[in-house]
């Protein structure tokens, strides 16, 4: 909302307060001032002058030497100044300069606009072709007024026909041009009232805050009275539904003279951001801005002189042609004002065209009603319309304010539109007390509670003063025992319901900045939980191995899925139904698409080596939702992507990333979690996005639980996504990993997974074992068989070579293992180990198609 300080000054004396001081105080008290605007023309130092004499320039044919008359009484200073300012000689190049015309004269030191780009510049004394020029005669563009006046002839701006000048008996030569034209500026505060303060959507409401903040008297509205005219009327108001209208007042006026509004009113409306239309429309807007109560003017001759006005919900499919020339088809969400059941306006939003005021209107039916905030909010939403009126109704208006607003408008209509007041028609909905008929609610405020809540004592006198300034009434008889009995005015009954609400009122006016800084009296212990340690360990292990953490959006779009070749489990999908953007409509079920997009983006930026991971949630619908339960599963996932090389500097060749590189990283991760012995990599061809021959499922504890996958992106998808090198992806369910750690009970506890194992007392003996095996026989199987032989002294099995060659045959490969034997009881002998090795080889050869080399 825009608050003109010129206007505000009518209700509270702002003398001595700078706009910045007012803005700061309002902002601190919760009425945020977003911007301070200075209105009015940008030029300064320009006065009205008259061309006295035009002479040729001695040194230029196209230039003229002009004497400008500037009046005599303009400056009351020393005589010399008055003398020099009474006239000025300037050089002028405009062809239309002629003797006797009134012009805008910019003196030396004046600020005017550059005609080319509108920038401001300050005039200095200059000499043009050897003749001194003491100022400038302005074109309209140099004043930036071309939008405000009819377009004059080219050249300088002749001002003789300007009405504001003609109305003077003698042109006020030497007078500041802004004053002459009535264009003095104003300061306008752009304020953002909080959602719960409908009362601040008015000039009077803002004035009340300012009066409280600076402890200045507030100019209260005067009570208004009208005498009814003895004119018969068959028009009446009957309200049936209190949910859509609680009070409806209508003022009947006649003998309207539609015309322009007084200049001061147009100016104030303009400052408030409202276009001036005619006196009647302007008065309804003016009163709304002043009081916060929206009004609507119907042409009563169009409305009809007899019948019943009501407010009801629209019927499905009902139509109404509104003032903006749109025919609207309505639903029962919309609320309409009706005349004999026919809709004539969208209540609190916009009038209908059939009853619109025009230049010929003679009779007026002026509406001031109380529409409940919820009804107008829903109605506005259903028709997709917002207006100044609805903004006020939605925040909540004051039912006690309706009649005053109506009478205030009637007063202005009488004065500025020649109208005669006939009478007021009023009705309250069934079950709604008539305005003024309900006692104000009362709240007891204990000063001890205030001190307890704020950590600061505010004395009774100050507290009482603040509350009174805000419009609360105090019952003096009950002011005792450090408490105040406070009655809440009608315009605060929506947001002030409890003692704590009053405490906030006192605190914010007193000033939050006066409340001290303390620390809580009691404190506690904060620890890193097992879950937090687990989550941090995941990232730490990956970062140490060169992976950079990324964060991708959890709200994705179908385009990303399509591009990366992923799909969602349809029946488990959480979709957003009201997104503004097609890129953000679905909750992700995998982190992989996001990582692929990040890799693609970085390759497009010229980064070939992308090693990244993300720890983030995925979302699945599982059960039915109810009031307290979404029926969703949100699971933490850990995913990574590797492509390019393991970069250790460019000047030597780096190994390209491959499957085993990713697997090694994952093995280190599992080791860091003490899960290394419990997870196996099983070949899988199932994942559509992966290379069928280079993909594995990570299986926990004998293959019972699948933790996730690791594999190379399918080469076809690699090509579609324009990756220049193979891309390796993994994605693990962190919840399952955490569960495998006993839901954290294994982390950091004395019985946990991290334990000391006694260092070996006796030396180990190592033996190498090379074998020729079919390529289809996995290493994992060989190791599993070896382990199953349960040789007690065999402590480690390490693969140290894989060899493939033509002479072995394409279906064979050689694998070389280093076996470590050790006893905890004694030093082993070479022959003992050799015997054990031989036994192992013999057993293995019986079980597997292998030959030892």
């Amino acid at each position, binding site marked *: 909302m825009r608050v003109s300080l010129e206007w505000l000054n009518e209700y509270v004396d702002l003398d001595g307060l700078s706009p910045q001081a007012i803005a700061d105080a309002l902002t*601190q008290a*919760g009425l945020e001032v977003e*911007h301070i605007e200075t209105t009015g023309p940008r030029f300064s130092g320009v006065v009205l002058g008259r061309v006295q004499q035009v002479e040729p320039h001695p040194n230029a044919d196209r230039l003229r030497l002009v004497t400008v008359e500037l009046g005599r009484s303009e400056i009351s200073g020393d005589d010399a100044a008055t003398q020099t300012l009474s006239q000025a000689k300037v050089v002028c190049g405009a062809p239309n300069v002629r003797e006797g015309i009134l012009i805008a004269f910019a003196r030396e030191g004046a600020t005017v606009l550059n005609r080319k780009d509108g920038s401001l510049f300050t005039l200095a004394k200059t000499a043009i072709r050897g003749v001194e020029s003491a100022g400038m005669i302005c074109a309209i563009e140099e004043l930036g007024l071309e939008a405000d006046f009819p377009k004059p002839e080219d050249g300088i701006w002749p001002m003789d026909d300007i009405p504001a000048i003609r109305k003077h008996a003698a042109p006020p030569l030497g007078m500041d041009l802004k004053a002459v034209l009535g264009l003095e500026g104003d300061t306008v505060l752009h304020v953002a009232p*909080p*959602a719960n*303060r409908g009362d601040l959507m008015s000039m009077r409401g803002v004035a009340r805050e300012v009066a409280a903040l600076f402890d200045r008297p507030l100019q209260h509205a005067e009570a208004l009275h009208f005498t009814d005219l003895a004119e018969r009327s068959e028009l009446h108001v009957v309200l049936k539904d209190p949910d859509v209208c609680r009070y409806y007042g209508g003022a009947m006026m006649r003998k309207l003279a539609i015309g322009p509004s007084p200049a001061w009113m147009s100016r104030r409306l303009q400052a408030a951001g409202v276009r001036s239309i005619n006196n009647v429309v302007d008065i309804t807007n003016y009163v709304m801005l002043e009081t916060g109560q929206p009004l609507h003017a119907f042409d009563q001759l169009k409305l009809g002189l007899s019948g019943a006005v009501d407010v009801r919900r629209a019927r499905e499919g009902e139509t109404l042609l509104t003032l903006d020339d749109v025919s609207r088809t309505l639903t029962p969400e919309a609320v309409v004002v009706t005349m004999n059941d026919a809709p004539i306006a969208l209540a609190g939003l916009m009038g209908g065209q059939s009853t619109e005021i025009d230049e010929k209107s003679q009779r007026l039916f002026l509406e001031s009603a109380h529409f409940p905030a*919820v009804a107008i*909010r829903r109605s506005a939403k259903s028709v997709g319309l917002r207006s100044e009126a609805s903004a006020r109704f939605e925040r909540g208006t004051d039912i006690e304010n309706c009649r005053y607003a109506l009478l205030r408008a009637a007063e202005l209509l009488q004065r500025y539109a020649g109208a005669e007041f006939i009478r007021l028609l009023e009705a309250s909905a069934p079950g709604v007390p008539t305005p003024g008929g309900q006692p104000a609610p009362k709240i007891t405020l204990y000063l001890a509670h205030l001190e*307890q*809540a*704020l950590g*600061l004592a505010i004395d009774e006198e100050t507290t009482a003063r603040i509350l009174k300034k805000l419009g609360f009434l105090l019952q003096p008889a009950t002011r005792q025992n450090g408490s105040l009995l406070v009655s809440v005015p009608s315009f605060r009954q929506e947001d002030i319901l409890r003692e*704590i609400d009053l405490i*906030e009122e006192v*605190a*914010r006016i007193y000033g*939050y900045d006066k*409340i001290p*800084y*303390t*620390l*809580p*009296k009691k404190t*506690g*212990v*904060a620890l890193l*939980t097992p*879950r*937090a340690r687990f989550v941090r360990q995941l990232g730490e292990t990956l*970062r*140490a*191995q*060169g992976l950079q953490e*990324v*964060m991708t*959006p*959890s*709200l994705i779009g179908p385009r990303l899925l399509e591009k990366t070749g992923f799909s969602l489990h349809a029946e488990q999908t*959480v979709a957003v139904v*009201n997104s503004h*953007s097609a890129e953000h409509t679905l*909750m992700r079920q995998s982190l992989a698409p996001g990582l692929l997009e990040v890799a693609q983006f*970085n390759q497009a*930026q010229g980064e070939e080596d992308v*090693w*990244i*991971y993300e720890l983030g*949630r995925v979302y699945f619908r599982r059960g*039915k*939702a*109810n009031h*307290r339960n*979404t029926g969703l599963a*949100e699971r*933490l996932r850990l995913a990574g992507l590797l492509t390019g090389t*393991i*970069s*250790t*500097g460019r*000047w030597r060749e780096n190994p390209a990333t491959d499957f085993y590189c990713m697997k090694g990283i994952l093995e280190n991760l599992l080791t860091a979690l003490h899960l290394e012995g419990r997870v196996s990599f099983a070949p899988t061809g199932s994942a559509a996005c992966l290379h069928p021959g280079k993909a594995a499922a990570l299986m926990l504890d004998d293959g019972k639980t699948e933790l996730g996958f690791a594999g190379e992106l399918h080469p076809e998808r690699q090509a579609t996504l324009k990756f220049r090198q193979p891309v390796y992806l993994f994605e693990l369910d962190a919840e399952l990993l955490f569960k495998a750690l006993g839901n954290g009970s294994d982390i950091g506890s004395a019985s946990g997974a991290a334990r000391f194992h006694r260092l070996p007392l006796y030396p180990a003996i190592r033996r190498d074992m090379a074998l020729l095996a079919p390529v289809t026989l996995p290493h994992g199987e060989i190791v599993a068989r070896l382990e199953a032989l349960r040789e007690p002294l065999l402590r480690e099995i390490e693969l140290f070579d894989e060899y493939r060659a033509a002479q072995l045959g394409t279906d064979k490969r050689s694998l070389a293992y280093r076996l470590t034997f050790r006893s905890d009881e004694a030093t082993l002998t070479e022959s003992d180990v050799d015997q054990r090795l031989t036994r192992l080889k013999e057993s293995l050869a019986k079980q597997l198609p292998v030959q030892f080399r």
Partner: protein
Amino acid sequence: MDVKADIDLKKKLKALKREVEAALHDAEKAPDAGAALETIRVEYLGRKDGRLTGITRGLKDVPPADRAVIGALANEIRESLERALDEKRETLRQKELAQKLSAEAIDVTMPGRAATPGGLHPLTRVMEEIVAIFAGMGFQSMDDDDCPEVETEYYNFEALNFPEHHPARDMQDTFYTNVAGHVLLRSQTSNAQIRRMEKGKPPVRVISPGRVYRNEEVNSRKFVLFHQIEGLLVDEDVRFSDLKGVLREFVRQFFGGERPTRFRASFFPFTEPSAEMDVQCILCRGAGCQTCGHSGWLEIMGAGMVDPNVLKNVNINPAQYTGFAFGMGVERLAMLKYAIDDIRLFFNNDLRFLRQFKGL
């Protein structure tokens, strides 16, 4: 013979000494200096056939009275020659070593080679930092799975004292989902307050970081999702002044140094009194600039005393307990701290951007 043999022997010894010294001097220049030195050692000082040994064999002809003197001289000459030989050998070894090392010299100005460790995403980094600051003030961090992001209206609005149809529900553009029963994407981390207080009675002193969603048009300031950190303290005798003190301490720790802060009145349905906290503009230090909208202040969080209705909703007696809550935007704080000018950078994940936030 006695005296003659005596004098003769002395002469021989001294001549030999000069001869060896000369040979040693020459050996230095020999192509294979090591071998030359060895030859000299064998020729002169060899225990069996060395010439010095040969000379000292003549000692037996010297009268016993002089034998000790000449014997001492012979020993002295032997030791001196051996020392000279050792020195030559050592010099030679040093020289050879120096040559070898010089040949091994590398260009130490060439770049080092190590796999570069990855870094935290700046948002994680800022969240961990904030969590640590509040941990120092006794605020326990809630676990990442304590609070859902897809939430019911009850936890996002109703329990937080947003009445149905209250205009406040329009303050945020909330994403609603296809899950029947008004399931939405949480618009604030404040659901953590309710989730935590439902789990246990006061004292409650927690902090809860997480992702929130707003149905906004994406631009340099706004994205459809961002991160918040929610804080909640509920105990006996908690005052607004405690809120001010805790948050000022946070600002000191997070931005460093003494920074002016201010608290403005505001409105949130779940706090009363409500406040917004501003910190003096990091960039212009209060002088007014584009970032702070020429106000000299930057809004960094919303806060307030927990509304009694919220406590009632979780069956905590507001007459016995009071508390405060606050919520701050992680992206905004990170942008201010690191002078980042576009929120989309956090979600584009340009590695050149992410790599700037490593280490201290």
